[in-house]
């Protein structure tokens, strides 16, 4: 399918790159479909492009590339909601933010993707040891 992106213009993607957020994500509750895109020359950063609003594009990282001890526990409700059968079917990413050239990752609210059915949800952890703005030294 063809999609419009914020940074790469119109591109063609395989249909299986589309991720469904049934309830949107916090702050963008009305956006349900995103495409998970690789960024050329980057192994660490990916792009979550909204298919409904071109200007909404989130950059995401795999947390364990930067924070080796990071842990995410899913609640029974979340496992049920995303219909997760195996731990190995799950991808986890964290959204990064830039302020004054400082890059931070939101470790409080990981994005959980079931790679089998493409259902996804940004969950909020109750664990107080993680920061919404954890600085990333370098990408």
């Amino acid at each position, binding site marked *: 399918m063809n999609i419009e992106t914020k940074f790469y213009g119109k591109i063609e993607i395989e249909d299986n790159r589309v991720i469904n957020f049934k309830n949107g994500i916090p702050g963008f509750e009305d956006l349900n479909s995103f495409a998970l895109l690789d960024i050329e020359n980057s192994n660490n*950063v990916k792009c979550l492009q909204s298919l409904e609003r071109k200007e909404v594009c989130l950059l995401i990282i795999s947390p364990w590339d930067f924070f080796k001890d990071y842990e995410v526990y899913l609640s029974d409700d979340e496992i049920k909601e995303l219909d997760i059968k195996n731990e190995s079917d799950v991808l986890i990413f964290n959204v990064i933010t830039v302020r004054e050239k400082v890059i931070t990752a939101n470790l409080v609210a990981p994005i959980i993707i079931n790679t089998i059915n493409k259902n996804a949800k940004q969950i909020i952890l109750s664990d107080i040891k993680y920061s919404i703005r954890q600085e990333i030294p370098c990408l």
Partner: protein
Amino acid sequence: MLIVSRKQGESIVIGENIEIRILEISESSIRIGIEAPKSIRVLRKELIKEVEDENKESINNLEFIINKLK
């Protein structure tokens, strides 16, 4: 909204599995203990707003990273 008065050490039970106990009352805040099944996430409400704000902020200034990766 149901409104009930509670003293220190007293509890409220919601359904069969959730108990909320008033642990300590001081002048400006109270400490609450919450027992709930693992299937239920218990969050400070302001944290949800903080995540919403962070997501909205995260779509700005990304050219900095995109250019850096080129």
